[in-house]
Structures are given as C-alpha cells and as structure tokens.
C-alpha cells in the first residue's frame, strides 16, 4: 500500500471509529444543530401538506449508484424516506422523481417502506418515477410533475448539473414564495449547480448541508454523530492545510 492509500484508509478508519463512538455516547441525548431556516420551513410545509392533502415532490437528481456522485443520491433517498414517514398519514403520498434506474427502484423501496410502517395498503406504484436518463430529458420529464400534481413543496436533493435552473424555475411557480406552506428547497453536490441554486431557489442549501438534511428532519444518533465527525474532520483538514503551507514556506516540504 502506498502512502496515499495508507492515509486514505487511516482517515476512513478514524472517521468510522469516531462516528461509532459518538453515536453510542450520544444515543440518549437530544441532538442540537445550528439553525438552518430552510429546514424549519420544510417541517411546517410537511405538516401543512398532510392537513391540506397536497403533495410533496422530491427530485433525486440523475446520478447513478455506480458513480462517485452516489452519496448525493443516498442523501436524497434518506430525505425521501424521512418525508414519506412524516407524511404517511396523508391521503397523498410524496412523489419522487429520478434520472437513474437504480435510484428509481430505491425510491420505490423508500416509499413502500414508509407505507408499510403505517400498515396502509394504498401504495401508489407511480409515486416513484424515472423521468429521463439524460440531463435535460430528466428535467423535461420532471416539470409536468411539479405543475400538474398539486405539489405544495419541492425538494431538489441529489446530483444535478446546470439543468437544475429549469427545475428551480418550475418549483418557484408551483410553490411560490410567500404562500403558506410553500417551500422550494434545493441542494446539489455539483459546484455549477450550487451557484445556480443560490441564485434561483427559495431555500438553497450549500456544500455539505445536503448531507445534513436527513438529520434535520428526523435525527437518529448516527446522524448527529456524523455531523460532529464532519466538523472534527474539517478541523483536521484545516490544520493539515495550514501545516502544509507553513512547511512549504519554510522550505521543509
């Protein structure tokens, strides 16, 4: 194993040990997170959607599970599952759209699991959809869902590229800012998409906030532990960058 492999495996093992220990130590305590207003609005929107009988739309992006961007899809799927659990009492389940076959199947699984949790038998097989396999066919296939299915809140959580501009514009029309219970929350792991989301979404999430979304909706010990681990690792990276820069300036590296 070369030194990069050694450092990489060390980093992963350290993260795993930290996460497992923190999850065990904090299993009974109430997690405290820094405030992100978008998630407070989302909690209210979920409650209102159940009362009104309107739908929530979760767009999971178009990356496949065999690509490096699959972590964003997993974060979106976790969000879908949480939202589906919270809205399981509603007459209208959330609708999920994705641009990859495997993610579409997993979104079916997530919706089905939440349906079984409340022993309902009314699971709608068209609630999780594959809308297109290329960036723009995915966007074009998702737009009618936002416009025609009485959607009150749109959550765009996953891997998007520049086509996200079309989705945020449509989300803005189907759930306009200012209307009660209306939320248009968007996050991506892709940098150009993040710039577009910042300019065009009502509630943009930047950077790693995408991966924290599940914890804000319904926290489990491993979620709060993983957020603390992220903070610890970020400090380690900052120290490593500073140390590297100082050593380089001193001519020792």
């Amino acid at each position, binding site marked *: 194993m070369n030194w990069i492999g050694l450092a990489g495996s060390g980093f992963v093992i350290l993260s*795993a040990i930290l996460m497992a220990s923190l999850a065990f130590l904090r299993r009974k305590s109430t997690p405290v997170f820094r405030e992100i207003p978008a998630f407070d609005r989302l909690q209210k929107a979920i409650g209102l959607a159940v009362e009104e009988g309107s739908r929530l739309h979760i767009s999971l992006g178009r990356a496949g599970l065999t690509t490096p961007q699959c972590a964003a899809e997993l974060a979106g799927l976790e969000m879908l599952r949480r939202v589906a659990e919270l809205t399981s009492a509603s007459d209208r389940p959330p609708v999920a759209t994705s641009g990859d076959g495997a993610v579409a199947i*997993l979104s079916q699984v997530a919706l089905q699991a939440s349906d079984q949790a409340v022993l309902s038998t009314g699971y709608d097989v068209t609630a999780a959809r594959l809308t297109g396999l290329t960036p723009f066919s995915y966007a074009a296939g998702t737009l009618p869902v936002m416009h025609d299915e009485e959607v009150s809140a749109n959550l765009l959580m996953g891997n998007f590229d520049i086509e996200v501009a079309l989705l945020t514009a449509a989300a803005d029309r189907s759930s306009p800012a200012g209307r009660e219970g209306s939320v248009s929350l968007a996050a991506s792991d892709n*940098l150009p998409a993040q710039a*577009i989301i910042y300019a065009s979404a009502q509630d943009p999430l930047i950077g*790693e906030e995408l991966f924290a979304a599940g914890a804000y909706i319904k926290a489990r010990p*491993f979620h709060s532990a993983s957020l603390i681990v992220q903070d610890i690792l970020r400090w380690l990276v900052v120290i490593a960058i500073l140390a590297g820069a100082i050593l380089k300036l001193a001519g020792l590296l």
Partner: protein
Amino acid sequence: MKLKGLFSTAIAMATGLIVLVGYFIGAPVLVNLRITILNWVIILAAVAVFIGLFNLLAVHADKIRNKKKGGFFSLMLVLFMLITLLLGLWLRPDHPAMSLIFNAVQLPVETSLMAMLVVTLTYASIRLLHRRYNLFSVIFLATALLILLGSAPLPFIGSVPILSDMIRPFIAQVLAAAGARGILIGVALGALTTGLRVLFGAERPYGGSNPPSGGK
C-alpha cells in the same frame, strides 16, 4: 420481513466493506472480489435502467387510461418510445437510422432546453435581490457581472483594461477557486460520512426499517 431486512443489511454491509478494503489493500483476493462485485453492480444497474423504462411506461399508461392532464403527450411519448425501442432492437443501435433519430430529435431538443437556461438564469439573477435582499446577494450579483464584463470584449473597445487582465483572473482563479475547493472538501466529507452511515447500517436505502430515532 424482519429477516429480509437483516439479510439485505448484512449483504450491503459485507459488500460495501469488501469494496472499500479492496480499494485500499492491494491483496489479489480482495482486488478480484472487488472487481467481481463491481461487475455485478454494473449488470444490475443496466437491468435497473430497463425496469425504470417499464416504470416510465406505467406512469404514462396510467395518465392515458385515466385521461389525466397531458394524456395526449403521454400517448406520444409511449408511442415513440416503443417505435424507437423496436427500431433499435431490429436495426441495432449503430445503424445510421438510429443515429439520425438521436441527431435529428434528441440532440436539438436538449440543445433548445440548454438555450432556455440563458433566459431562466438571467431572470433568476434579476429576481435574486427581490427574493433575498442581503449583502451576500449583492456580492453574488456584482461578482457575476464583473466576470461577465471581464470575459466578453466590448464592441469597438475590445477587452476592458484592468477588469479583463487583473480583476477577472483574480476573482476566478484565486477567490472562486479557493471557495470552490473549500466547498468541495465539505462535500467530500459529507459523502464520506454518508457512506459510513450506509456501511454501519444506520441508513438503509435498500429497504428494511431504520434504527430508532434519537431525541429530536
């Protein structure tokens, strides 16, 4: 049902660990096992695409059957999807007719949608201050305008002095690149912890009930 959940969790954790360990440790047994698992995943992903197409068909067939809004477009979609599929199976994907379908239909439609982005993004930028009137939005817009002005030469003048050769490169190559790197490091750390949650079985996108909630 519980047993099924445990079984799928055990398989997911075991395969995830084998692939991860095989990536870092170059032992031939682990590397071969990792490559075999990844090959299976690629085959399964291809099958999933096919299942996804059936899902697409089911959604639009439901729209046509129940005479929902946009039913005519669903009919067109189903019709042309089946025609393209049959042509592809009959002529093979490398046939000139298949290339023609792609180049004459798919490509122009996607290009038109991409062109629409210019309008959408310009409108979004105009509305940004209406949506969120704060210092960061002002900086965002000012930076975007400086980069645009610095990138596009003005008629009769050419490139704008100082802006094109000093300010734009400084913003793009120093400030933006540094910020982008910071965001990417954050995203990478988020991806790492998400992967670990799946490996620990704390997140189960493949089914089965999740572990109990914490305090919140």
